[in-house]
Every structure is written in C-alpha cells, then in structure tokens.
C-alpha cells in the first residue's frame, strides 16, 4: 500500500465509510471549520473530515481540499496499528524505537513534484490554511513538519512547528530554543547563516506519528517514521535548497525556504493545545523559495486546541518505559484529554511494595518536561474512566501523606498558570496499602446475582431508552 495521505483516505473510506465525512458545502477558512469540529468534539465524534470547498482568508475558493481530525481518534489509530486502544501509547512507543532507513527517488517518481512553483509563482494565500480561533492573526500551518539538517551530524530533524502564513511568500514560525529545530537554528545564527528548512504537509498517519516522536538529535526522524510505518520513507531532493536537502516524496505539499538569521517579526497570538491562546512572540520567519505539491493535493490541518492523540500517545509510552525500570509492576498509563493530552498522567500499578507508588510518580513526573501532574492507582481502577479515577482520588488519597511535590523544574511554556520558567510538578498517590486488611472493601454485589439479573427482563428496552439520561449521576 502506498504510504501517503490520499491512499490512506481511500483505504479507510472503503473500510469504514462511516468514519470519513466529506463536506461539499462551502466553508470559510476563518473559524467555520473549527466551529464544526468543536461541535463534533462535544458529541465525542472524531471522523476524518474532508472539506472540499474551502474559502480562503482572501474569500476565494481554494483549489485544494482540506483534511482535518485525522489524528483525533484513538480508536482509529489503534485499529490502524492493530493494537488495543488502551495499550496504544505503549505500543506506539515500542514502535518508535524501530528504524527503517529512507530511500531516495528521482523527481519523476515523486508525486510531490507534480506541480512546482518558484519565485513570483508562489502564493501561499491560495492554500486553505485555517484561522482557527479568535485572536489568531491569520491562517496557520498547524499540521506541517518543519525539517532541517544538523550542521555536524548531518541528520534530518522534523517537528511540528506552527507557522503563520503572512503574505504570499513569508511564514512566521514558533521555534522555541528548547526544541531540536530551535537548537539547530541557534547554531546557524551563531555563524550568522540562514537555515535551510522545508515545511512538508500531508502524510500517512503513521508517518505523522513516527516523525512526532522525540528522539536524539543524532537520529533521523525520517528513519523513525519508516520504522513506525513498517516501510522506508521515500525522499527526493529539494528544488531550491540543494540536492543534499531531502524532503518526503509522498507528501501533499513541500514548502522550501530559509529561516533568516538574526531577524524576528511578531508571530501569534495562537490558540494552542492547552485550549488557551498563547501570547504574540518576537519570532523568526521563513522566506519561501519554492512550493511543490501533488496534482490534486490535499491540505492537512491539525485541529490544534481540540482532541488529538499526537502528544498523548508518545507521552504515555515514554512514561511507561521510565516507570517500568523502577516499578516493574506498572500495568498501564493514560494521558487524558482533560489534561490537554500532555500535562496529566494516570498510572496503574499492581502494588506489591509500600512506597513503589511514590517512586512511580517521581519517574512519571520526570519522564517529560510537559508532564505536570501524575496520579497512581491500583489495578481495580479503570484509568480510562474519569469517574473511577476521581472516586479513587476521593477515597484513597490524603493530602499530607500521599502527595509528591517536585518544585523548581522546567514548566510547560504554554501553561497559563506557569509562574516563571520553572514550575512545580505534583504527584498524587491514590493506591491502597499493600496489606488488604488495612483498607476498606469496595462495594460489590455477588457475581452470580449480577449475572442472573437482566435489566431488560424488568424494564423493556423501549421503556429504558425513554428514561431521561442523567449527566449528574
């Protein structure tokens, strides 16, 4: 199977026509797509959305369809990876260690070279890039990977970086110094050299997952994406950045250019994964030298600020691995959307030794700088059910005895409550004592009685469905 976005869409639509929604009605890039996605999210429905008639910020119909919500369904990604949804983070992490070296193909074999624009032919304002939220200053690249090469190691580095499309040939980029791409740019700025970069937009979901994985600077994200996909990524030389600058041949779009050394322009505010808008910043910008794309290319949008599994899956896997080294009886981990998919971790352990739950908390809290709070539960608590999570928090936790506080550690930049660059990580031990005689028994009804009682024998199904649903129960 070809490993690209449109082949995946065709495959998935044939397999699950109910899970791909094509919308032919005209929609505005400014706010309307986000409004529709927001309403679906409130109903907890996350089909792949394909908007076939998007009006750009300039009010013109875009020639390109827009795809969003691709990475928003844990259920869909689990089926794609042939994994149980509850184990998806762990399995994703295991697969992120696999590598497949990419292969280089000729331009004629690269779909992304079917249309090439350079110089005055380039007009980014014709793309159906979205203005997602109030206070966003304009259309943004939200699902594009920014790729550059390390000047000493020669390895490619790819990461999602938001980019504000500011006119036909300029993109303003959030490139924090703590990121690998930020580090590579800093090395170039020290030598007063512009940095060759390319945004590539639109890929198979497993390529997106593989490239989003945090790996050492000496490792190739393209090889990691191949490992996640189970086949090598196909690369092709760039148009304007030299033949040694390789880009994904099967992407929908590639946008080439230079990040200008020593120059900054205002970027943002922008609605981020925290579901708050981050402030405007004084950020670098990209002067675009070429845009290449498929004939009939689809623009890919990551619906930022709404449910998506990108950060949460890699967060779960990294925490599981780190905790397991110290507490081998960890059974599962979950990064819920209520914690923005990043800030919160729910751990589940089979507690055999007193204190192991607190060790698990310390390991989880230090597994990534974005993890802010962690809870640990026994195996009788379903960590994917927040009703059960909160009940265990209410009944198994004491503030003076069961808390772990780690002050003075790097805090997430986009956390609105962050007091400074340093913040506090907190862990909550919601496990019972190892000795069952030191804790109360949970309510239960004898199993044989539960099995014999069939609700519909007492209340017929049509009567049952008429009883009001109670959200406060």
């Amino acid at each position, binding site marked *: 199977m070809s490993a690209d976005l449109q082949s995946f869409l065709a495959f998935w639509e044939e397999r699950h026509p109910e899970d791909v929604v094509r919308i032919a009605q005209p929609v505005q890039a400014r706010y309307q797509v986000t409004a529709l996605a927001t309403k679906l999210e409130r109903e907890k429905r996350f089909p792949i959305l394909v908007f076939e008639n998007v009006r750009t910020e300039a009010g013109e119909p875009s020639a390109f369809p827009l795809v969003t919500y691709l990475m928003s369904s844990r259920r869909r990604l689990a089926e794609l990876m042939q994994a149980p949804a509850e184990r998806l983070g762990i399995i994703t992490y295991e697969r992120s260690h696999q590598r497949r070296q990419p292969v280089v193909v000729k331009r004629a074999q690269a779909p992304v070279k079917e249309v090439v624009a350079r110089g005055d032919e380039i007009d980014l304002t014709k793309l159906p890039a979205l203005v997602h939220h109030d206070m966003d*200053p304009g259309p943004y690249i939200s699902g594009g990977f920014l790729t550059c090469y390390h000047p000493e190691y020669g390895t490619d580095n790819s990461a999602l970086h938001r980019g504000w499309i500011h006119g036909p040939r300029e993109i303003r980029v959030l490139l924090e110094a703590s990121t690998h791409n930020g580090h590579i740019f800093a090395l170039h700025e020290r030598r007063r050299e512009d940095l060759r970069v390319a945004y590539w937009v639109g890929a198979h979901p497993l390529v997106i997952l593989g490239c989003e994985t945090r790996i050492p600077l000496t490792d190739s994200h393209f090889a990691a994406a191949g490992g996640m996909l189970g086949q090598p990524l196909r690369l092709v030389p760039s148009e304007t950045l030299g033949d040694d600058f390789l880009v994904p041949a099967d992407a929908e779009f590639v946008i080439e250019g230079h990040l200008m050394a020593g120059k*900054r322009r*205002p970027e943002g505010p922008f609605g981020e994964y925290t579901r708050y808008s981050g*402030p*405007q*910043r*004084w950020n670098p910008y990209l002067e675009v030298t070429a845009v290449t794309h498929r004939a009939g290319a689809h623009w890919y949008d990551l619906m930022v600020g709404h449910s998506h599994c990108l950060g949460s899956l890699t967060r779960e896997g990294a925490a599981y691995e780190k905790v397991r080294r110290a507490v081998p009886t960890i059974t599962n981990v979950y990064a819920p959307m209520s914690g923005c998919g990043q800030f919160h971790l729910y751990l589940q352990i089979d507690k055999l030794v007193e204190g192991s739950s607190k060790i698990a908390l310390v390991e989880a809290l230090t597994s990534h700088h974005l993890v802010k709070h962690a809870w640990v539960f026994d195996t009788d608590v379903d960590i994917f059910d927040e009703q059960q999570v909160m009940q265990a928090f209410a009944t198994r936790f004491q503030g003076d005895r069961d808390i772990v506080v780690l002050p003075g550690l790097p805090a997430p930049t986009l956390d609105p409550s962050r007091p400074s660059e340093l913040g506090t990580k907190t862990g909550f031990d919601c496990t019972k004592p190892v000795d069952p005689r030191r804790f109360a028994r949970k309510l239960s009804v004898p199993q044989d009685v539960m099995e014999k009682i069939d609700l519909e024998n007492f209340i017929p199904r049509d009567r049952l469905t008429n009883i009001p649903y109670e959200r406060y129960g």
Partner: protein
Amino acid sequence: MNLVYVNCPRCEETFYVDPEFFEVPDAYCHCPYCAHEFSVYRQRSA
C-alpha cells in the same frame, strides 16, 4: 504563561504579547484584528 495585555491604538481591540516586546528596541506588535503594527518598547508600567 508570561503575557501582557495591550490595546491596539488604531482599532482599540485587546490582545496579549510576550513581555519581550517591552524590552527589545526593534520589536513591534502586530494587531491580530486590524493588522496595525506598533511599538510598546519601554511602555510597561512597573
């Protein structure tokens, strides 16, 4: 999150910026509502 609310002098809409805009002489803000660009360098009250 370190942020400072500012008012656009042209359209009077409110948005927020990183404090570095008050400290970097060359930096200027861009109003997300009307695209007006303006400086707030050294304007921040203590």
